[in-house]
């Protein structure tokens, strides 16, 4: 009896391991496409739901009719959908896409699961750049995003410079540096707000916490091309990021141009984050929550994780913004408040869950 039991045990164990599923085989292009399609489907559904929600009642049926090409009788409903809700949804999607992508790439390059544009202070740096642009009266179409990009790039170089001074980019050092940089930039922002006497004060404050209510199509047309180009370039290097996660030395050994890739990515992510922050303000934690959730479901391979996080980020931020504009209707919350309400506890949970495992080097 005992013998037969012993014989059955090992195969059973192996069987259980085999059911791990995702990890038993490599990532295929087909798998990436399937995942992308499923997430895109969810994205479309969330866009439709978001379109139909708001102070003015437009039912989901009306929305579908409108998309199918039937002219709505109600001109105001058409105005609300097309001129107010849709650009806002698109911009929310683009911002979520960008911040989430930025999170994944920072986490891989810095080999640090807690890295994210907001936590590292990159978003604040971009905001300082944008505010300087606003105060000096530069245009929102070119001048402000440009300064914002420079602010983001300056910050990431600063954080890297300070954080890597003492033996590599260790988790706690990097996060601490981000906290300090954040505090400093907040002071700079407060200085600018205190010294600006005019009516722009309120809009700056609201914008600071992540505000998508001023969305226009023109912002989309400015931000979409660079963001798409940078995303494609980054996706091209997605497998390189996998190797970097396994150690820079081995990545270098196998032919990954680590330094070049870092520069390309930091420039690209700074550009994207800068543009996005100049339009939407500081929206934190998106790049933390979404990539971690995706990693839990899909595994850590960046060839799958990058597109999944990017689309997932869009879904997440559209949902968060819909909540922000409907939860206290008729008044609105900045969407950054919603993401922080969700993100801060999530961050603490992550720290508690795996803190010790992540700080060992």
């Amino acid at each position, binding site marked *: 009896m005992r013998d037969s039991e012993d014989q059955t045990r090992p195969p059973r164990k*192996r069987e259980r*391991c*085999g059911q*791990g599923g*995702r*990890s*038993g*085989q*490599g*990532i*295929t*292009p087909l798998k990436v496409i399937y995942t992308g399609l499923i997430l895109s489907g969810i994205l479309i559904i969330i866009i439709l739901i978001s379109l139909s929600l708001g102070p003015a009642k437009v039912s989901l049926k009306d929305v579908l009719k409108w998309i199918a090409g039937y002219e709505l009788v109600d001109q105001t409903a058409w105005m609300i959908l097309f001129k107010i809700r849709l650009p806002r949804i698109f911009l929310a999607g683009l911002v979520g896409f960008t911040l989430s992508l930025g999170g994944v790439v920072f*986490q891989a390059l810095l*080999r*640090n*699961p807690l890295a994210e544009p907001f936590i590292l202070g990159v978003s604040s740096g971009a905001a300082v750049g944008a505010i300087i642009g606003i105060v000096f009266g530069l245009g929102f179409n070119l001048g402000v995003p440009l300064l914002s990009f420079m602010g983001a790039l300056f910050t990431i170089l600063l954080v890297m410079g300070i954080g890597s001074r003492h033996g590599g980019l260790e988790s706690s050092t990097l996060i601490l540096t981000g906290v300090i940089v954040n505090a400093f930039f907040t002071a700079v922002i407060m200085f600018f707000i205190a010294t600006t006497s005019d009516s722009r004060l309120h809009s700056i404050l609201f914008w600071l916490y992540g505000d998508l209510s001023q969305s226009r199509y023109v912002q989309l047309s400015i931000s979409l091309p660079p963001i798409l180009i940078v995303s494609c370039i980054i996706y*091209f290097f*997605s*497998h*390189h990021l*996998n*190797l970097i*996660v*396994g*150690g820079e*030395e*081995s990545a*270098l*050994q*196998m*032919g*990954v*141009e680590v330094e070049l890739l870092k520069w390309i990515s930091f420039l690209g992510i700074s550009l994207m984050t800068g543009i996005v922050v100049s339009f939407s303000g500081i929206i934190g934690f998106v790049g933390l929550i979404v990539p971690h959730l995706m*990693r839990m479901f899909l*595994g*850590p*391979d960046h*060839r799958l994780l990058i597109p999944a996080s990017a689309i997932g980020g869009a879904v997440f931020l559209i949902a968060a913004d819909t909540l922000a504009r409907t939860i206290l209707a008729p008044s609105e919350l900045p969407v950054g408040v919603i993401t922080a309400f969700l993100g801060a506890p999530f961050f603490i949970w992550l720290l508690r869950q795996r803190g010790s*495992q*992540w700080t*060992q*080097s």
Partner: protein
Amino acid sequence: MDSELILKGVYFRYNSQWCLEGIDFELKRGEIVGMIGPNGSGKSTLLKIMDGLVKIQRGEILLLNRPLSNYKRGDIARQIAMVPQESTFRFPFSVFEVVLMGRFPHLGPFPFEGKEDEEIARQSMQLTGTLDLATRSIHELSGGEKQRVLIARALTQKAQIILLDEPTSFLDLRHKVEIFELISSLTRTQGLSVIIVSHDISLAAQYCQRMLLLNKGSVYKMGEPAEVITADIISTVYQCPVLVDKNPISKTPRVTVLSKGRVRHFHNSKK
């Protein structure tokens, strides 16, 4: 033609300090060379130089009779694989995914592995006895299992030369022996050439055909284990009194470190 890697008069300088001076060395096909030497004697640097990761100031390195400097990084990676001392994956890649990463130098611009690549990865896992771990997360493995996985990744790279930088330093006795056994069987069955850095001199002497003893950036002694590992040489280089005798079973040299009190006793009893 059976020289895989040749170093001729290699000098390397970091800032103004010479780290390596006049290294001559030849790695033959199918041999295991043990690299030993005190801390800071330049072992890791020499491994990096052999792998072309660090540019030398003087001298010449030939990989398969062609200057190493003429190779592209990817070409080197198809000939030489490196197993690091330790590797920390920050995210829970599965063992199979990690081993499959060894195919990176063989992938074109299209960054996905095919069936063939997966087959090679599976073979490497078979050879290293890690196939059962395939779906486990790299985080769950013990030190010994992890080293075997990293060796599997190096095999998946399909390189002829494998460089190991202190692969056994964090392992207990049994796992140390297992790693050496694995390497020695791989050189026999796969015809690989191996350079292994180790601080366990007696153990390395049992498995290596030749030993390379580095001291202060130059080769102090090179040759068969019995020539390199003598009480004189080891105690001079490591500045520590040692007793060297023969392992009664393998007949290879065995190093015993003597504590200060015992040295006096030992010398007295000789008188």
